[in-house]
């Protein structure tokens, strides 16, 4: 999905890193093999990156500059307009922002702006992640029933999150994230939040 962007900008010391928040590498494999990207696609079945960066939805992206600083927080992105009829979000504007950043025409957000834009994890987020972590471990160790209990708890939260949606996928309690209804619901929520203009850069 991001191959064209990567091809266009890679000579500018720019890289795309995709993190697959899948249940197993085998779930992600057909998608990755079909797309055959030349940028790294990393498998994160334990949601290490979701925890470190407080990623609560997919697809989202953030920008990290050459010095290893986050200069744009997690934000919804689409590489194509496939879902535009559902999301009413165009891919063009965020992609134009990425291009401008890669070319050095803009520099992402300043530290002071970034702090205002970041969504930091709550105790509830971290409790859900602990439940997910236990469930994932139990599932890997063949304790399916016990795992299911904790996947459900990981998803049992008011705002719904990537981790809980994944969990719910396993526990079959909620529709998977990529269903149009779920996507529509969270996009509505994110567009009605107090931060609709994050596409500024």
């Amino acid at each position: 999905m991001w191959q064209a962007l990567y091809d266009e900008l890679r000579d500018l010391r720019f890289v795309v890193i995709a993190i697959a928040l899948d249940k197993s590498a085998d779930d992600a494999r057909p998608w990755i093999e079909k797309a055959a990207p030349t940028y790294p696609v990393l498998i994160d079945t334990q949601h290490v990156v979701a925890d470190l960066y407080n990623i609560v939805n997919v697809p989202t992206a953030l920008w990290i500059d050459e010095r290893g600083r986050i200069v744009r927080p997690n934000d919804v992105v689409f590489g194509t307009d496939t879902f535009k009829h559902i999301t009413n979000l165009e891919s063009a504007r965020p992609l134009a922002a990425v291009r401008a950043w890669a070319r050095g025409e803009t520099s992402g957000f300043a530290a002071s702006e970034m702090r205002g834009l970041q969504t930091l994890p709550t105790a509830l987020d971290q409790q859900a992640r602990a439940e997910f972590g236990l469930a994932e471990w139990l599932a890997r160790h063949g304790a399916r029933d016990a795992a299911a209990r904790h996947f459900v708890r990981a998803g049992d939260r008011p705002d719904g999150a990537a981790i809980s949606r994944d969990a719910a996928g396993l526990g079959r309690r909620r529709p998977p994230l990529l269903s149009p209804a779920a996507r529509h619901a969270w996009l509505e929520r994110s567009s009605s939040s107090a931060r609709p203009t994050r596409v500024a850069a």
Partner: protein
Amino acid sequence: MFTIIEGGGERPVDARVEDGRVRLSADALREALGWELHDGTLCNDTMCVPLPAGSRLGEGGVFDLGEVAATLDRPLALDAEAGAAFVGVSAGERAQALGSLIAPDFTLSDLAGRPHMLSSYRGRKVFMVAWASW
């Protein structure tokens, strides 16, 4: 045996499970999580956390895992029946790290099993996308 999962690792420990609560000896607590109680303060190699007033943690040499997690402000997911618990990272610690704006480092493998460390991309602009096939 009871398993405590924490910090990317897991440890089998001697624990008594009673009424859904997990009780550890001082030795088991130190082995599993690296914390020891000294004069009303829980300490590991790098920091100390005072017990809240009235806390009975460690009384009689017994440590309730739920109370330990609460004292350390860390989330605990526990399955007494399956004999396993996951001790997560506190919201405060994560918020502090993210607030520094330094991108937290990690190592993950691609489909071919090759490990990639985020910091090895230093010197390049990184567009990091989270997605899932589900």
